[in-house]
């Protein structure tokens, strides 16, 4: 490329750098529900400065003798820049008015309890998906940030936002894959080599990577599903089903769809691994001598709710939904397309082989963060009684001393509100319009509950410091 064209390219990149920096600077003045967005902007601006420096250096190093080298560096910087433009969208949709702001403090707290020092930017997207972007091996300050995206169309849909729990586990799986990959790829390669009719083998490395990636994506999704279920208990399953109902439960994993495992497969694994539910039918259980042998955690919750006649309705609702889910996961239509495709079959055999280890790994993370739904289920009956009064489930009040209150756990709030909502849905005389009103009302009550928990946490922490300050002379 000759000098005038290089100058033009240089101008283009300089213009884009200026423009992006100006926009980032403007974005700093918007209102965000937490300080993370501004830190993110600062890191981005710092990166742009680095880019400027690198361009300057390349020009002084290589012009006029090596114009191609300058061109290559300018194009690469240009590409890095364009790839950053999505951050502007993320920032715009991270503004307070665009996100479910009352949830943001809770999201950030769960994220930091799961992984200390996490920097999570919560934003919304027009895509109908919950997702998170993170850097598995951070190489620069900007890589410290993870970007959590929620579907904007469900901004107020607190029931679905429990799926955020799933997303927060994604960045925590790195070590698991480092440990598992050597043995898994070896088995995958052997299995692919022994296929009767192997697909084109001219690039075995690509074929193995294809199957490895399908395996990794399946395991990732299943581990995050399990993590979310440890966190939010049956509410995670209700949210997952509600979100996935719009798609085919038996949709085969594909490269077009980022190798998501079929929804039915995911729910089955969660019910089996996390809740110890039998995924085989009653007849098979009978023959295997398993029928009625153990009380599962969901049954334990149902029994607790049954103890008080004011909440026994919730026990019935829970049992009824458990049965419905079990009926669905005992069908195995999702396995048909997987078994028909030799590569997917190979990947999923390996998924089954490592799932016990995956479950232990994810359980360890959640347990060490102290985030297990079962540990606070005794709060659920009280919160259900609040909800029946149309009161947000954000406080457990001492019935003898007004003002003596404590905060419930986030999982208890989620479970109670879901159960209450399922009751409202089941009401036979409700019109769709009434049902929608009730759904919105329950969303508001749940969001207010979450918000009140974080407010009290902050108030109690600040109050102690304030009282100490007041005692000073």
């Amino acid at each position, binding site marked *: 490329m000759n000098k005038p064209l290089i100058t033009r390219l240089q101008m283009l990149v300089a213009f884009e750098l200026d423009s992006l920096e100006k926009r980032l600077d403007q974005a700093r003045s918007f209102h965000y529900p937490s300080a993370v967005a501004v830190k993110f902007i600062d890191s981005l601006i710092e990166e742009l400065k680095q880019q400027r420096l690198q361009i300057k250096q390349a020009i002084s190093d290589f012009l006029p003798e090596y114009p191609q080298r300058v061109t290559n560096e300018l194009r690469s910087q240009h*590409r890095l820049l364009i790839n950053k433009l999505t951050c502007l969208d993320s920032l715009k949709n991270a503004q307070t008015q665009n996100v479910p702001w009352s949830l943001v403090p809770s999201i950030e707290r769960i994220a930091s309890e799961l992984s200390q020092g996490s920097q999570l930017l919560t934003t919304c997207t027009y895509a109908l998906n919950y997702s998170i972007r993170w850097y598995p091996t951070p190489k620069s300050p900007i890589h410290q940030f993870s970007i959590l995206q929620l579907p904007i169309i469900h901004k107020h849909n607190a029931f679905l936002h429990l799926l955020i729990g799933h997303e927060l586990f994604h960045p925590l799986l790195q070590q698991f894959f480092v440990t598992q990959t050597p043995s898994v*790829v*070896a088995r995958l390669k052997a299995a692919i080599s022994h296929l009767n009719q192997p697909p084109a083998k001219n690039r075995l490395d690509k074929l193995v990577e294809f199957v490895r990636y399908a395996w990794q994506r399946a395991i990732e999704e299943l581990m995050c599903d399990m993590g979310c279920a440890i966190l939010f208990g049956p509410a995670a399953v209700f949210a997952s089903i509600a979100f996935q109902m719009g798609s085919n439960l038996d949709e085969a994993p594909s490269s077009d*769809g980022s190798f998501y495992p079929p929804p039915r497969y995911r729910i089955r694994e969660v019910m089996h691994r996390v809740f110890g539910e039998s995924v085989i039918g009653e007849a098979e259980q009978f023959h295997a001598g398993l029928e009625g042998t153990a009380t599962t955690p969901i049954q334990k919750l149902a029994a607790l709710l049954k103890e008080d006649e004011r909440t026994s309705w919730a026990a019935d609702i829970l049992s009824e939904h458990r049965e419905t889910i079990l009926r669905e996961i005992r069908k195995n239509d999702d396995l048909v397309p997987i078994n028909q495709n030799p590569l997917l079959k190979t990947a999923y055999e390996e998924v089954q082989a490592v799932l016990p280890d995956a479950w232990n790994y994810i359980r360890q993370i959640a347990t060490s963060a102290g985030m297990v739904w079962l540990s606070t289920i005794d709060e659920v009956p009280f919160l259900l009684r609040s909800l029946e009064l149309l009161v947000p489930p954000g406080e457990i009040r001492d019935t003898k001393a007004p003002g003596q209150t404590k905060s419930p756990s986030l999982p208890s709030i989620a479970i109670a509100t879901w159960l209450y909502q399922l009751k409202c849905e089941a009401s036979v005389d409700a019109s769709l319009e009434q049902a929608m009103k009730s759904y919105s009302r329950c969303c508001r009550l749940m969001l207010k509950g979450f918000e009140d928990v974080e407010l009290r946490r902050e108030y109690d922490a600040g109050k102690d410091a304030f009282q100490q300050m007041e005692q000073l002379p």
Partner: protein
Amino acid sequence: MPIADRQILGELVDCADIAVRAAGQLQLFMIGKPIRDRQVLERVAEFLSAAEAGGIFMSCGDSANLHASLRPLNWAVDTRMNEGGLEQGEFKETDYQSLTEYLRRMRSTVEDLLEGNRPNNAAIEECMRFFDSLGDDLGTRADQHVRGTSLPCSSLASF
């Protein structure tokens, strides 16, 4: 674009940039100027090491050092093929073996530079050529995705 793909795209853009900048540093060394970006050489050595681990696995089945994806190997093979260093067609274990040796040679050149030794000019030129091609290949592939594309409404309908 599904989020997992966006993550791979980020990796692609990043890797292309490292290759381009590493080639620049090698060029500086060739013309007798001091290397000013050691970090980029360290990162390119990491890439070569990951690709090499993939190559060892594909040639002799030893996966002990393979802790992540085979993408570095996939990209290295693609680049070598485009360079004409490997023949198109079925890729055999011996091909992976020769590629692994090639990658190892380059890694040791980069590590020599990092340790302050002076590798011979032919080795540096070989590395530079490879990184130039790698940067070009990966960059071209990334460019197709980082820019928004104009599409008629009908193609959105089928999305």
